[in-house]
């Protein structure tokens, strides 16, 4: 929404700050001016950004009222403004209409008509003098005003209206339609003009009939439901109430006589209808956020007068104004709100300025600001509270706290001090904070970089990478994001794919995030950890190049799991998930609980994803892992005696696994053997130095005692028993030189 500063100033003749200062002061009070653009006429165009709760301020008069409150200046009534700026002359205001006076409250003006019980509410059938109007759907329409303007000449707008439309970037349609839009920008109440001669009989505001068709101003034809509200004549629907007028009754250059409508509709009805038809218009925007029921008559008067001026028409004396009492109560006659002075001051806290009552908000400001915004305050006898009447254009104000906010806002937030509340209560850590931090620390140290991925996955990927069924989204972002990720793997696999496509040679990533399972009825959500490794595996004397990446990830998983107190880890190659290349992965369990899956991506998937090299992935099930306590470090005095290394070389059949070697050696129960590690594994593809189906294993034992120096004799004995044990599982000892 845009504002012309010159137009704004018409309502505030006493305003003497310059446009830039005005823009800044408005912004600091929540009526944000996002941009200030200089215009050839010396004024400025303000680009406004006003929060959705403040529809009342999305027009020139509304912004002017804010400025009046900020600076404590008098605001012209709309009628005084019209007289001063549009045209002088007799104003055909019906006796019972109070809205022009009510609508714009200059300082000191009282809301006499508003709260009084004798306020005249017209019956649902207007008097015969005006155009007949009947509100049939009283639950959806609160007020409807109508006046006829005759003998108009419809043509292009000229003069001030045309200039201002151009400056504001508003499309000019014709002088008649422009009059409604001009008034909309002036004071924010939507109005509509009908070609009177296309109407048959009186106006009826009713629900649409099921299946009723209506052609709208934009040329589209809508199929209506009984939840749509229409403005109709005796014959048919003329327009979609509060949203858009109809095609058949539109004002054209041929139009001679016009019916001006200014009405008020139920916000929820307009919102539902606007959404149903996908029609978001200026009018629907205002109505669905709450228009001013009290402004209908003055809006109608202002448009009527504008039509007289710009189209040369003559308004009928008769004015029809039908109000539904129930809506009158909910808008113009809302109950008073009690505002406690002390509470307001205490709630807002310390001010920077120190006044008579100390550094709290001065009491007189409370009254001044609220009156300027259109409230009427009646102080209690002891002065401790005010009974506050709320203005009909501020449906967002309902409660004491709403008024407190208004006071703080107009006073200026930055005039409050910066204080710190005293602290009571302790700081608690999340149950798994330490475990989570440890997992991250380990992985970062191992060279895995943290990634964050999408919460969603495609259905095919989910089925491939997760055992559990995925939960479907109702309005997915895309086809590839159709379900809540049941596993982190689809995400990290995709990342590896992207990296590979960008010629990144080496990827080490991990992600910690939530995964989802269950049903659309009940979604289960739990944390998970994924690892991804691609490229750069380093072969060692024990690990062949082709297996290097797997063992690197295995190492990382071991390191992570090793920080927790778990039952013995079991690495099983049985029953692997479908994404794992057969024979190239493992499930890791401890005490019968699966803690992780590690595996090489299947060749089929690798090719599908155009990965040039092996990629190894792992997923660690954090709830199962976090159920295990973290290892608590405890110190053991390092031995002061020399450690002795002994290497042995054996030939084994491929059927003998390292775990078999360990079991055989450890089975000897040599307490002084503090370490047993493979040093080199060798297979000869040609079967020369090592026969096919066999491998040579060089391993290292380290012996150390905490109490004494080991003797050659002991060492020799142990070595001999190790050789014996390994011979027992089919090994053939080789001379040390062979290693």
């Amino acid at each position: 929404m845009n504002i012309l500063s010159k137009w704004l100033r018409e309502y505030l003749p006493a305003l003497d700050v310059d446009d830039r200062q005005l823009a800044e002061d408005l912004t600091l009070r929540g009526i944000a001016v996002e941009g200030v653009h200089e215009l050839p006429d010396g004024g400025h165009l303000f680009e406004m950004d006003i929060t959705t709760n403040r529809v009342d301020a999305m027009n020139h008069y509304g912004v002017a009222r804010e400025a009046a409150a900020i600076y404590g200046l008098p605001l012209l009534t709309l009628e005084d403004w019209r007289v001063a700026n549009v045209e002088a002359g007799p104003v055909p205001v019906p006796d019972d209409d109070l809205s022009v006076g009510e609508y714009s409250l200059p300082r000191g003006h009282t809301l006499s008509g508003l709260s009084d019980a004798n306020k005249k509410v017209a019956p649902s059938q207007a008097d015969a003098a005006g155009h007949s109007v009947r509100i049939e759907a009283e639950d959806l329409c609160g007020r409807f005003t109508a006046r006829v303007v005759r003998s108009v000449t419809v043509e292009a707008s000229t003069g001030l209206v045309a200039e201002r439309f151009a400056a504001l970037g508003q499309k000019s349609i014709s002088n008649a339609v422009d009059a409604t839009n001009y008034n909309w920008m002036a004071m924010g109440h939507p109005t509509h003009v009908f070609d009177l001669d296309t109407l048959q009989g009186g106006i009826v505001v009713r629900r649409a009939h099921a299946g009723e068709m209506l052609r709208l101003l934009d040329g589209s034809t809508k199929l209506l439901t009984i939840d749509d509200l229409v403005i109709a004549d005796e014959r048919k629907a003329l327009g979609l109430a509060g949203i858009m007028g109809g095609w058949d009754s539109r004002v054209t250059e041929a139009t001679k006589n016009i019916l001006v409508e200014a009405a008020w509709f139920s916000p929820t009805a307009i919102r539902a209808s606007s959404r149903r038809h996908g029609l978001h218009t200026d009018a629907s925007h205002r109505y669905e956020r709450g228009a001013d029921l009290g402004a209908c008559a003055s809006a109608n008067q202002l448009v009527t007068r504008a039509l007289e001026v710009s189209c040369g028409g003559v308004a009928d004396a008769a004015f029809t104004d039908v109000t539904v009492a129930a809506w009158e109560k909910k808008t113009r006659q809302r109950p008073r709100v009690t505002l406690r002075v002390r509470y307001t001051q205490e709630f807002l806290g310390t001010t920077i300025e120190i006044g008579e009552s100390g550094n709290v908000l001065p009491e007189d400001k409370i009254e001044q600001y609220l009156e300027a915004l259109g409230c009427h305050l009646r102080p209690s006898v002891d002065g401790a509270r005010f009974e506050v009447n709320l203005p009909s254009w501020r449906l967002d104000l309902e409660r004491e706290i709403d008024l407190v906010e208004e006071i703080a806002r107009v006073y200026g937030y930055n005039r409050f001090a910066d204080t710190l509340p005293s602290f009571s209560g302790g700081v608690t850590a999340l149950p798994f904070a330490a475990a989570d931090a440890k997992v991250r620390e380990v992985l970062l140290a191992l060279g895995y970089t943290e990634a964050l991925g999408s919460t969603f996955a495609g259905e095919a990927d989910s089925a491939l990478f997760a055992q559990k069924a995925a939960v479907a989204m109702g309005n997915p972002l895309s086809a590839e994001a159709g379900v809540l990720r049941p596993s982190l793997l689809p995400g990290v696999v995709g990342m590896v794919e992207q990296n590979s496509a960008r010629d990144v040679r080496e990827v080490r990533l991990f992600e910690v995030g939530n995964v989802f399972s269950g049903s659309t009825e009940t979604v289960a959500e739990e944390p998970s950890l994924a690892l991804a490794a691609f490229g750069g595996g380093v072969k060692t004397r024990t690990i062949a190049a082709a297996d290097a990446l797997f063992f690197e990830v295995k190492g990382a998983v071991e390191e992570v799991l090793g920080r927790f107190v778990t039952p013995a880890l079991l690495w099983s190659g049985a029953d692997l998930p479908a994404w794992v290349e057969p024979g190239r992965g493992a499930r890791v369990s401890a005490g019968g609980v699966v803690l992780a899956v590690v595996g090489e991506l299947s060749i089929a998937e690798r090719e599908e994803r155009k990965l040039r090299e092996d990629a190894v992935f792992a997923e660690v099930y954090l709830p199962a892992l976090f159920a295990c306590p973290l290892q608590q470090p405890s110190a053991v005095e390092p031995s002061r005696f020399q450690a002795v290394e002994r290497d042995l070389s054996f030939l084994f059949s491929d059927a003998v696994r390292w775990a078999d070697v360990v079991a055989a050696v450890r089975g000897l129960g040599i307490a002084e053997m503090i370490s047993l590690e493979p040093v080199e594994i060798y297979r000869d593809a040609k079967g020369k130095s090592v026969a096919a189906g066999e491998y040579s294993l060089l391993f290292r034992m380290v012996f150390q005692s905490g109490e004494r120096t080991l003797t050659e004799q002991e060492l020799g004995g142990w070595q001999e028993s190790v050789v014996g044990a390994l011979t027992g599982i089919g090994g053939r000892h080789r001379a040390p030189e062979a290693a």
Partner: protein
Amino acid sequence: MSYELPSNIDFSSPESVSKALADLQAAFADEVQAAHSADAREHFRVRWFGDKAGLVNRGAGAWIKAIPSAEKREFGAKFNAVKVRLTEEFQAAGAARSSATMAASLDLTLPGTRRGVGVEHPLTRTMREMVAVFAALGYSVALGPEVETDFFNFEALNFPPNHPARDTQDTLVIADQSSRPSRERLLMRTHTSPVQIRSMIAGPPPLRLVIPGKVHRNDESDATHSPIFHQVEGLCVDRGITFSDLKGTLDHAMKAFFGSSVKTRFFPSFFPFTEPSADVQISCPFCGGAGCRKCKHSGWIELLGCGMVDPAVFAAVDARRVENGLEPAYDVSGISGFAFGMGVERIAMMKYGVGDIGQFYSGDMRFLQQFA
């Protein structure tokens, strides 16, 4: 290093004595050549020239003690000559070694070798740093589910059903919800604020919580918007919490995070769950407020949304507490509080100069490793 002083020299035989001295010198010559490294050389020095246990001194001592006294003087002179020669030889070997070092000196311009370290994600890092600031102010971390019910995400936060305020937070919903009661419908949380509600239902005041988390909105992606993003939210509820306390807390937190010279200013704003509501700008920490690209030459950067907890939120919390069989604990006649929230991506983008928000979720190693 098998040489050891012989213990069975026949000092009556000059041949035997000469051989012992020759063996000593031969062993020395062998070992001095092998002592290349500084460590080995030091080891060598101690072995041969050590004050008490060194071979040379030990040899002198043991042999002179064993030799017949008539020949002591002559042998002493001989041994001394050997000792001088050995010392010279040792020094010469040292000099030769250092010139060899010069010839094969290190090319110090070659890059060092190392294992690449892993890098924490810039969003995690930003959240961790934010959380740390509030932890120091006595805030505990709270977390909540990413899949929420309408009640926690909207209704309890004073977004009534069909209210226009919901338009600002377009929501991703779980499938098959239309037949369920409105408040039970499942959706992706659009903000971390439902954790406020869950925490207040779970426990009475005082509360000081900092809530980092992932949130989702049904928004189009562009360079600065992502349907997936992160927030850090805070909640402070106690007796007598004031609007100026909110101001002071956030001013302090921004100074702690961006540096003590940063200033804050507050603008009225609108959030359904706070009242009064404010947007907070900080003076640009990059240019000190003079105007730069990061602050779009305004000198100020908008960073936070905040406000005093709306009484309707407290009322919704107490209603649910009662439903759950708990005592109401958030009576607004005594209790007040404030809440605030900020977008993590926005802060990280600004702080690290990231141009495209999508990079945060790309898993691109080249991008992520810049944040080491």
